[in-house]
């Protein structure tokens, strides 16, 4: 039975054979046809040879979560052939390179095999190893165009846009597409029952990954100093920032209105960020779990000495090195309470590349307003995969919230300046920057200090400052982005609460559960410390399913610690093996508990 604009296929290739451009081409083509699409790149922690997969989901309903149902598999990697065959859904299709006979493995009866002599075709048509390898990928794009009815004009246009200046390259790419297309048309009885049909659902959207959008957010926020040490999956955030700065932040004579410091490690990177913020710049560092672990001491300094800092934690599968090219939400607890002693940090939790853009800006405003480190926790799935999101908008009237920074004029007026006095009763003291005014001078230290900024070893003076900082952080609870909330299809005592990248899976699951008559109210927290709404939501429901991607239920832990609700009512739903969460994970988790209950 045919399914239009609602199916998923997966492409299995060895790493480093250049399939990514082919997959990008597919994504864009479908997107340009106005059909909602998402891609998940499942790649290894190596540079060449190990297996890699690219998953493309087409969904007229606009679902972006990963699916576990693959209608069509392009099994182009001998290493994983068996595994890949097994993954095709019953009555699905499998495309393979028929240049060589099918592997001895018993063929699946419930799967239709589609042989395309990819190697043979390209070897005939192209010279040179490199070109043949690359064109083989483009050839399968052609075959898929036929099988899935991808608009070939769109593909042609895309190739023009990409290779406009390199006609030779364009021709060979077009040739490869045509080869694949013709073969599929004539030999495989294309199209398949699952295929595309033009829609008009993407014109206000873009395809973008969260690292790129966060890098762009830093540019729009007016960040001028970025310090980093490369680490997967955060690397492309700084590369994005650099790219946009080269475009937007250079004077006619090529001088830079930004500074990017490639530090020797993460301890230095966060140190540079704190130094730059202390001097008055908006500064940030992108990293991942291992980097956060190394930044602990410095984060404590920034917390206690009250210096802004923006840290992007693009989470990967931990602890330790773990699986660097797989996703997880394993740093929720660490970031909330990083460093020794009593600390508590503002955290932001984007759920997709659009929020990754917006929250980058929010992060700088909060960091400077509250004079404290702010963590933006995304993950590999949000950061490195191409998501379809509504176009980004920018309000030109936006001006940065630099917080309470005294100007030279204000200092000139002031009788005397004390760094850590709670003048306004909001727990936020006034700051000064170096080089502005003699009266602004003060001594920053991570050692004991009193509200005047003087060194102290006195318990009352010490506690006084620490209590104020605690109040200050609590006040941030109402300043972080409010939770996203959606009422259930009908009144219910059940709630579903999640964070970050699980959003797509939860939204899809809620729809499907509703079809089964199971209604849940939904909340997605977007910032920490949690605002009152969160406790209210938990209080308002008998059972709240807490959906997250880590082993120990870290979001559930944060909710327990911060809202004081009885933990018993928080029912944990987790998947944390490294793939993005799917609606099926959520549904299974919820149903299991409900059945038990029933």
């Amino acid at each position, binding site marked *: 039975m045919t399914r239009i604009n609602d199916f998923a296929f997966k492409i299995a290739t060895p790493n480093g054979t250049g399939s990514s451009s082919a997959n990008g081409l597919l994504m*864009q083509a479908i997107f340009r046809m106005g059909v909602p699409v998402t891609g998940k790149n499942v790649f290894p922690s190596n540079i060449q040879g190990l297996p890699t997969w690219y998953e493309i989901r087409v969904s007229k309903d606009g679902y972006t979560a990963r699916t576990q149902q693959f209608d069509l598999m392009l099994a182009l990697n001998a290493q994983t052939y068996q595994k890949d065959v097994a993954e095709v859904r019953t009555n699905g299709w499998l495309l393979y390179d028929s240049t060589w006979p099918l592997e001895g493995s018993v063929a699946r009866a419930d799967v239709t095999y589609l042989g395309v002599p990819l190697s043979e075709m390209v070897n005939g048509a192209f010279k040179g190893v490199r070109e043949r390898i690359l064109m083989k990928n483009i050839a399968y794009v052609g075959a898929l165009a036929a099988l899935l009815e991808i608009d070939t004009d769109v593909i042609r246009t895309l190739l023009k846009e990409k290779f406009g200046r390199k006609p030779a390259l364009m021709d060979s790419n077009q040739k490869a597409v045509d080869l694949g297309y013709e073969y599929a048309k004539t030999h495989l009885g294309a199209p398949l029952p699952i295929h595309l049909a033009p829609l008009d659902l993407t014109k206000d959207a873009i395809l973008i990954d969260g690292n790129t959008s966060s890098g762009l957010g830093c540019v729009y926020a007016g960040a*001028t*100093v970025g310090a980093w040490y490369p680490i997967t999956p955060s690397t492309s955030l700084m590369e994005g920032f650099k790219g946009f700065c080269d475009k937007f932040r250079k004077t006619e004579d090529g001088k830079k209105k930004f*500074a990017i410091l490639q530090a020797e490690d993460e301890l230095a990177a966060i140190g540079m960020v704190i130094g*730059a913020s202390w001097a008055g710049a908006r500064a940030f560092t992108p990293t991942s779990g291992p980097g956060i672990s190394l930044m602990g001491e410095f984060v404590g300094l920034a917390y206690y000495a009250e210096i802004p800092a923006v840290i992007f934690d693009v989470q990967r599968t931990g602890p330790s090195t773990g699986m660097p090219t797989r996703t997880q939400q394993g740093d929720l607890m660490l970031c909330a309470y990083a460093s020794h002693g009593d600390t508590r940090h503002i955290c932001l939790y984007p759920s997709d590349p659009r929020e990754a853009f917006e929250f980058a800006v929010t992060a700088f405003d909060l960091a400077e307003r509250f004079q404290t480190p702010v963590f933006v926790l995304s993950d590999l799935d949000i950061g490195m995969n191409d998501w379809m999101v509504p176009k980004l908008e920018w309000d030109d009237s936006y001006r940065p919230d630099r917080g309470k920074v005294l100007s030279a004029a204000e200092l000139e007026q002031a009788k005397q300046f004390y760094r850590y006095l709670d003048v306004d009763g909001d727990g936020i003291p006034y700051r000064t920057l170096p080089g502005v005014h*003699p009266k*602004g*001078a003060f001594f920053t230290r991570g050692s004991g200090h009193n509200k005047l900024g*003087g060194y102290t070893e*006195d318990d009352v003076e010490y506690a006084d400052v620490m209590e104020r900082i605690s109040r200050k952080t609590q006040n941030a609870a109402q300043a972080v982005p409010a939770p996203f909330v959606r009422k259930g299809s009908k009144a219910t005592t059940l709630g579903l609460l999640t964070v970050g990248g699980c959003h797509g899976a939860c939204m899809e699951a809620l729809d499907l559960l509703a079809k089964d008559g199971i209604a849940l109210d939904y909340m997605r927290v977007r910032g920490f410390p949690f605002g009152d709404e969160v406790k209210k939501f938990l209080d308002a429901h008998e059972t709240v399913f807490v959906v997250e991607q880590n082993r120990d239920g870290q979001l559930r832990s944060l909710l327990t610690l911060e809202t004081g609700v009885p933990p018993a009512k928080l029912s944990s739903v987790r998947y944390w093996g490294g793939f993005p969460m799917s609606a099926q994970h959520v549904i299974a988790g919820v149903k299991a508990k409900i059945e038990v209950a029933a």
Partner: protein
Amino acid sequence: MTYIAKPKVHAPTLTKNEIGLTRRDYEGTVSTLCAGCGHDSITAAIIQAFWELSIPPYKVAKLSGIGCSSKTPTYFLREAHGFNSVHGRMPALMSGANAANGDITYIGVSGDGDSLSIGFGQFGHAIRRNVNALYVLENNGVYGLTKGQFSAAADKGSTSKKGEANTMEPIDGCLMALTLGATFVARSFSGDKAQLVPILKAGLAHKGLAFVDVISPCVTFNDHEGSTKSYAYTREHNVEIVHADFVPPAEEITADYASGTLQNVMMHDGSWVRLRKFAQEYDATNRDTAYAYIRARQREGEVLTGLLYISPDSQDMHTQMGTVETPLVQLPYESLCPGNAELQKLQAKFR
């Protein structure tokens, strides 16, 4: 207990510098170091150097790590922003602050534990970046604040207060700096203000990282027999090869030395460093002969002091990065944000 601010008695007799400030205006709070600590002498020299150069204190940022040495920034330049940070990580803070605002004068104060033990990596990489700053390493061969353990600068065979001998090669900050391509390398002795002050001044005028290793005896834990960082030892074995003499842009140079013993190096701001030489063959602008000479004297158990190396064509971090003249912190937001129109244009790329 909050710090005790020194009574600011302005005796009219106190001489004023070009911007009308007295030495007092360059002081900080009362030192809480041990009486006789070498670090206090260095503080005095720093005060003198800034005063003589007439640098407005509030245009200075003074940063340090953790240690007795790292406490000293509280004791000078009351009106400068100070940052007593975490152990061994001052160089990163200084690099970041400098990237944000290259218009103020940076002085980083560190100890041998702070820079050569826990901070060894950051020390090396700050030199590599050639951050425009004066980097003073107050070197006593021990961890003073934690009561006298050997630091990485403790000399082989030198004995601790508890009587143990150090078995490892010391790390020599100056040799390390030269090997890392430092553009300004000097060594002095806390007790030798006449030599130290001009070196500090030259370091402040240098565009790039000016590394100054100052032997600074720890009277409490490392000023005994058998310590090569003791007052006695340093006084005896201190060999001065090059005496730096700093001349601000204004004045012109009076060549009142026998030629051949005099070498003039022009600084980026047009000022001059005049190097009076005691060792004829020594060329303070040659990195390799400098290295070789330090090693040679070391083999004789001598501590070579003076301005050991200076690169006239130093390219500091900002020059290398190609940042705009205006300090980044002073760029108006409007000149940093591309605005919505650009954003919409840009997004064509993402379809």
